[in-house]
Structures are given as C-alpha cells and as structure tokens.
C-alpha cells in the first residue's frame, strides 16, 4: 500500500514539472516535437531509476549523521551530510557516462534513440532534484527509493509528452505574436499545473474528514458516559 501511494503521489500530486518545476530547461527546450520528447522522457525515467536508489545507498551508509557506524563505533559521530551535493552530482555524472557506454555496447538501437539525450541529462535539474528530494523527504527503504525514482520519472515523462503534443498542435492557432514560442508555452504549462492541482485530494481528501467525525462522536460518547456517572453518583448521594 505504501508503494502504491508513493507511486501515484510522485506521478500526479508531486509531479516534478508541475509542482516543483524541476527539469524545466530541457522541458522547454526539447518539447517542440513529440518524437524527441518521448526520447528524452524515456532517458529521464531510466537515469532516475538508477541514480535515486544509488544515492539513497550513499546517503544511508556514508553521508547521514551516524551513517558511518558500520565502519566501527569510533566513526559513529561523523556527519558528512554537507558533502551530499558534490557526492550526488558526481554519482549522477559518472552513472550517466557509464550508462551511455553500456547502452552503446549492448543495444545500439536504444543508443540511437536515447544516446543524444544522455549527456544532456547529467545537468538536468530533475535528476539531481530527484536525489535531493529523496534525501529531504527521508524515504525509508531501498524499495521505496527505487519506486520514487521510477514514478517521478514517469511523471516527468507525462508532462513533457503532453506539452509536446500541445505545442505541435498550437502551431496552427493564431497566437498573439509576442507570446509565440516561449511565452505561450509558459502559460500553457501554468494552466496544466492548475489542472494537476486537482489531483491533490486524491490520496488524503476523504479520509481525514471521516476520522475527525469519528473522533468527535467518540468524545461525545465519553462525555455522555461521564454525565451518566455523575448523575448516578449524585442520585446515590441523595439516597444516602
């Protein structure tokens, strides 16, 4: 259940583009055609799925306060979290390079479709943002970190796919000249973000109200019981 919740939450509610504006640069620059947008989106899912769990391991076993305890009790006091930026970005840059080499060797077809996007991705804020949010939201287990990487990648993919489809069509509309290109893309993204906000109540909306109602009912019950006790006490006193 935890997994399902995180999955839908990262795709729809905390969507990387619409809720936190991560990876906007490539989102705006590479969304002119659907085909290229799909390529970049797939590459982002792929790289996030590798780097987020890897950086989770790094965070748990090296960077966090007390994370070095596995080396021995004398290391338990170290807190290396100030190094996390440089460690995360180094991991991402090397992993991207490594993935590029491996993909080129074993799957030339995939390399031809993803290859040109991979170098772009090392400096995509969505990738570093994935790791940094993973750290600041304190994701608990390796499985959840993997889930978080994949699902936020899917969210980013959805966003770039939809904006690319809209931009292909908007070519035929009569946009005011100063808004053409970049301006209208910003405004459409804003409107899409407002649309995505409606997913906000998807996971928590109903439950909370029910819970508060139940609590008040219980409180009333307790009050009633106390009242009846008091009345009973009073009656017994009077009888005495």
């Amino acid at each position, binding site marked *: 259940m935890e997994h399902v919740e995180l999955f839908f939450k990262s795709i729809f509610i905390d969507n990387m583009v*619409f*809720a*936190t*504006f*991560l*990876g*906007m*640069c490539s989102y*705006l*620059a590479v969304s002119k055609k659907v085909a290229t947008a799909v390529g970049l989106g797939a590459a982002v899912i792929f790289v996030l799925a590798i780097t987020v769990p890897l950086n989770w391991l790094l965070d748990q076993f090296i960077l966090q306060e007390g994370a070095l305890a596995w080396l021995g009790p004398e290391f338990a006091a170290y807190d290396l979290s*100030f*190094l*996390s*930026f*440089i460690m*995360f*970005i*180094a991991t991402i*840059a*090397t992993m991207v390079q490594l993935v590029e080499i491996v993909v080129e060797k074993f799957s030339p077809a995939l390399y031809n479709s993803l290859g040109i996007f991979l*170098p772009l991705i*090392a*400096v*995509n*804020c969505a*990738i*570093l*943002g994935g790791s*940094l*949010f993973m*750290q*600041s939201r304190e994701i608990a287990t390796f499985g959840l970190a993997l889930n978080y990487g994949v699902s936020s990648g899917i969210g980013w993919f959805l966003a770039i796919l939809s904006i690319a489809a809209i931009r292909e069509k*908007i*070519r035929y509309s009569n*946009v*005011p*000249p*100063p*808004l*053409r*290109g*970049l*301006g*209208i893309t*910003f*405004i459409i*993204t*804003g*409107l899409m*973000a*407002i649309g995505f*906000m409606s997913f906000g109540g998807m996971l928590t909306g109903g439950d909370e109200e029910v819970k508060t109602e139940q609590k008040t009912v219980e409180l009333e019950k307790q009050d009633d019981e106390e009242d009846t006790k008091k009345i009973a006490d009073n009656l017994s006193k009077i009888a005495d």
Partner: protein
Amino acid sequence: MGLLSRKDSKLILDPLADDNPITIQVLGICSALAITAQLKASVVMAISVIFVMGVGNVVISLIRNIIPSKIRIIVQLTVVATLVIIVDQVLKAYSYQLSKELGAFIGLIITNCIIMGRFEAFALGNGVWRSFLDGIGNALGYGVILIIVGFFRELLGSGTLFGFPVLGDPIAKTGVYAIGYENNGFMLLAPMALIVVGIIIWVQRSRNTALIEDH
C-alpha cells in the same frame, strides 16, 4: 564608464534586458519559479547565484586551458558543487530558517542551466576579467526576473513585501481591504509563477518586436 570599456559594460548590461537568461536564453527556469512566492527568498536566491556565477566563471576561465575537453562537464560540476556547498553552509550558519525554506533548491543551483550554459558558452573561451563580468551580468539578469516575479507574487498573494504588510491588515479591514479588496491566495501557488513569467515575456516582446519567435 571609466572603469569598464564599452565592450565590457555591454557584457553586464545586455543580459539585463535583451539577452536575459530567463526570458530570452531560456536558462535556469527551475529555481526561478519554485522559490518566488516570497520576495525575501527571491533576493537570497539571486545573491547566491550572483556569487556562484561570478566566482565560478573566474575559476573555469583560469583553468580553461588545462581541462581536457572530454571530462569538462564533470570538472564544471565539481567547481559549481563546491561553491554551492559554501553558499549552503553560510546560509545554514547565519539564516537557518531561510535555508530550511529554500531546502533542496539551494542544491539545485548546481544544475541551474544558466551556470553550465555560461561556462560552456563564455568562460571556456574568454579571459578572466571578461568572464567575471559575463557571470555577474547574467546572474543579475536572472536576479532581476526573480525579484520581479517575487514582488508581484508576494504583493498580490499575501499583501506584504519582505514580510511587512503594505496593503493594510486583511483581518482588521484597514488600507485597501476597507474597500473590499481581497488577497489572491492563488498567486502563492506554483502554477501562477509560470503564468507571471509568461506575462513578463509577453510584455518584453511587445516592447521589443525584434525578439518575437515564429512558433
């Protein structure tokens, strides 16, 4: 200008308007949008980026002839990451509350495309002084947009500037609230940042028609 030649001052002034990194070059959008709900955060972010870009451009320009071009991305990332760690630690030491609010976005300066973009486009091919000016200029251009967006979002969204109420008290109904004005809480939400930047682009391109794109 006595200190700067005309060519040098162009490096600083161009990015402020006609070659603005956000509205024209489309670089560094992520952080520009996420932290602009308050003017204070925008100003701190702008100052951080000015520091990182100025120093970063100088460092890259100094070592530009000894970086092997194959690994230059990693070298650049290391330089930026080091500078950002300095900014982050200073913020944590002197303004812990603000550093909590900005959270991961300080770290995201590392992948701010303005920085990598200017390293690649300018600092790798130019001298130290010119690179420094280019860095400061572009960071200022970025900061200007950030502050404009932050100004409007905070003013219209919560009726304050830097946290001080400027439009009166919404609860006691003083100032403009007395005649029925209400804060637009929607301005504080993420999507409005995009729309405000869209409007800034619209205004800028209406004033300077040479910038208009054909789709």
